[in-house]
């Protein structure tokens, strides 16, 4: 079981994190370019500007995820071979003026120059980075990414809860016409984004992206927005979502059913779905000027026992008969507390396991998830056509 647990942690940490698809170099070294391509859901090859790992030689939307341990003394190497000046602003990390990435008060990194941004990652949390040159344009062209500062012991902050995994969701948007004609995009006050993304993906690109979350340990959703829109995330009750942090600082814990995220804000939300949960979070993008709802994206979260590899592994753990039509039992568990959920997350049984097994004669046909006290989640099938 432990093997599967570790495997699942790996799944959770890597699934749906296209923002971190390229492993961080040690030490990380970024470059900027203005000749990238990002494919939209309809297949459009969109010109982008952005950052990428030097060793890879290509830029991505969003930029690579930067990860640091809390307390790390960081020197972020940056080179700019692009034809225009850029910088890196480390949004929320409270760096000193020289490393703030604002050209007027820090410095430009002009074409052909290299530099480094030096700072200490003092607080665990969720942050952003972006170019601060002609910011309105350079952001919508794609020059932004996320920074995670985490603790080696897996806790959110000193004295905080341990989490099974961190899942970064970076919300952003863009106006296609601007990316195709950045010079002709002026003036900016009437900008109206028309592509709304999570980790650079939108619409059908998000289908099949799944966060596999444990029902026994919280998963940390690291939410950040570099959008021009207001984003509201809606959390179904079965996710047991709780707000724990904002802008890299602890906040009083509160249960969440929805959360507004304004441009530049970050939040850490812990979710711990009910066993068998199969649903997700809906993110609504709303125009900042007139409040018009522009788009909704659905971010799928499934409880980890539903992962096909786990279900296969657990099939032989002892429910008999399986499929069942009248009683289903697990002899070595008689008398222990067992809870059973339908695949929709509804609790259908909670009590001691009778010696003759669970009476499923009136249950609907389908797959059920069962957890015997002190054991992992297993499944059995009710099929009234079965023996």
């Amino acid at each position, binding site marked *: 079981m432990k093997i599967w647990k570790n495997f699942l942690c790996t799944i959770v940490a890597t699934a749906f994190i296209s923002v971190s698809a390229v492993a961080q170099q040690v030490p990380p070294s970024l470059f900027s370019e203005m000749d990238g391509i990002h494919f939209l859901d309809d297949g459009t090859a969109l010109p982008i500007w952005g950052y990428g790992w030097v060793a890879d030689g290509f830029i991505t939307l969003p930029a690579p995820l930067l990860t640091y341990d809390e307390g790390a003394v960081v020197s972020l190497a940056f080179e700019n071979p692009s034809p225009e000046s850029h910088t890196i*602003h480390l*949004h*929320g990390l*409270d*760096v*000193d*003026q020289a490393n*703030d990435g*604002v050209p007027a*008060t820090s410095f430009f990194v002009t074409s052909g120059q290299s530099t480094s941004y030096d700072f200490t990652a003092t607080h665990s949390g969720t942050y952003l980075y972006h170019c601060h040159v*002609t*910011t*309105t*344009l350079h*952001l*919508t062209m794609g020059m932004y990414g996320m920074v995670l500062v985490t603790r080696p012991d897996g806790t959110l902050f000193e004295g905080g809860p341990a989490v099974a995994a961190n899942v970064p969701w970076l919300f952003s948007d863009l106006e296609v016409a601007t990316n195709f004609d950045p010079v002709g995009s*002026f*003036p*900016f*006050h*009437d*900008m109206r984004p028309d592509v709304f993304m999570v980790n650079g993906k939108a619409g059908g690109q998000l289908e099949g992206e799944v966060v596999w979350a444990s029902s026994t340990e919280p998963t940390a959703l690291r939410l950040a927005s570099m959008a*021009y829109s*207001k984003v509201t995330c809606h959390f179904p009750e079965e996710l047991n979502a709780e707000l724990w942090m*904002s*802008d*890299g*600082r602890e*906040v*009083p814990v*509160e249960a969440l059913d929805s959360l*507004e995220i*304004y*441009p*530049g*804000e*970050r939040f850490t939300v812990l979710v711990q779905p009910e066993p068998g949960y199969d649903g997700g979070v809906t993110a609504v993008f709303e125009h*900042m*000027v*007139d*409040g018009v709802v522009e788009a909704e994206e659905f971010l799928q979260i499934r409880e980890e026992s539903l992962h096909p590899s786990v279900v296969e592994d657990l099939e032989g753990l002892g429910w008999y008969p399986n499929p069942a039509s009248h009683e289903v039992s697990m002899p070595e568990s008689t008398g222990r507390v067992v809870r059973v959920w339908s695949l929709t997350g509804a609790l259908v049984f909670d009590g001691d396991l009778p010696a003759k097994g669970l009476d499923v004669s009136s249950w609907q046909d389908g797959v059920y998830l069962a957890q015997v006290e002190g054991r992992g989640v297993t499944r059995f099938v009710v099929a009234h056509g079965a023996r």
Partner: protein
Amino acid sequence: MLEKLFSLAMASVLAGSMSAQTDTLWMVPGGVTLGGDTLAALRFCATPQFQASNETLDGSLSSVFVVNGDSVAHELAWTAEEGTTWTVAPGASVELDMSGLGDATNRLWSNTERGQTLGLSTMLRSGWDDLPHYEWNLNEWDPAETWSLAAGGSLDPSAAYVPRQFTINDRNFPNTLADTSSYVQTSVGEAVYISIVNQGRMDQVLHFHGYHVDMLQSSAHENRVGWSKDTVPVKAGERVVVRLDPNQPGEYPVHAHNLVAVTNAGFYPGGMITFLNVAP
């Protein structure tokens, strides 16, 4: 007309000053230039003369007289008495009770379409006076709308709202740097308060470079009092008070992070940008 109003208000002030401290605001029409655009404007002013930025009031006032120097009646509202409005005819005045407000930043505005569009809205602040206290009134502007309303027109509800000027204290960057109420000058270890009121029709969000600030008041997010934030939403009509405890020297911008709002007539940089200047 204005002289008559002045006499009326002075009489009120003198009567009030016999027992407690009062102040007076005049509602005055005029015009302003912002980021290359000219706009019709209405402002709360410290005298009967038009001023480009709304006057803010603070301190231990027991009341404030508000005199209508505009040519039409205004329906005044303020957040210290939610749900109550005062209709003030041209030349008339109203007295608002400011006693017993405690530590609070309130908003006073004209609830008419003309008043809202022309910018007749300001903050009345009480308490939190043990440290330097800065005041940021946020707003956004569509110049064509202001001229339409000034000419007696009304807003077309079917028309798209596309503001093209974005201001702190009715100024946009770089003119914000010359405003001692928005440009923060302090030293390491010397804390300041900042009251922020969104007088506009759209939500805003401000990002502080270099520091986190402590939330002392947030009228739309009461659960956030006590939070430490570097990016602070200020919804339309919201009042926020933060405390900045600078722990490092430097010059850092504070700006809207809805990045259309850091432009003047669509060109960057401009709009809602000011700076924190922290001496060692």
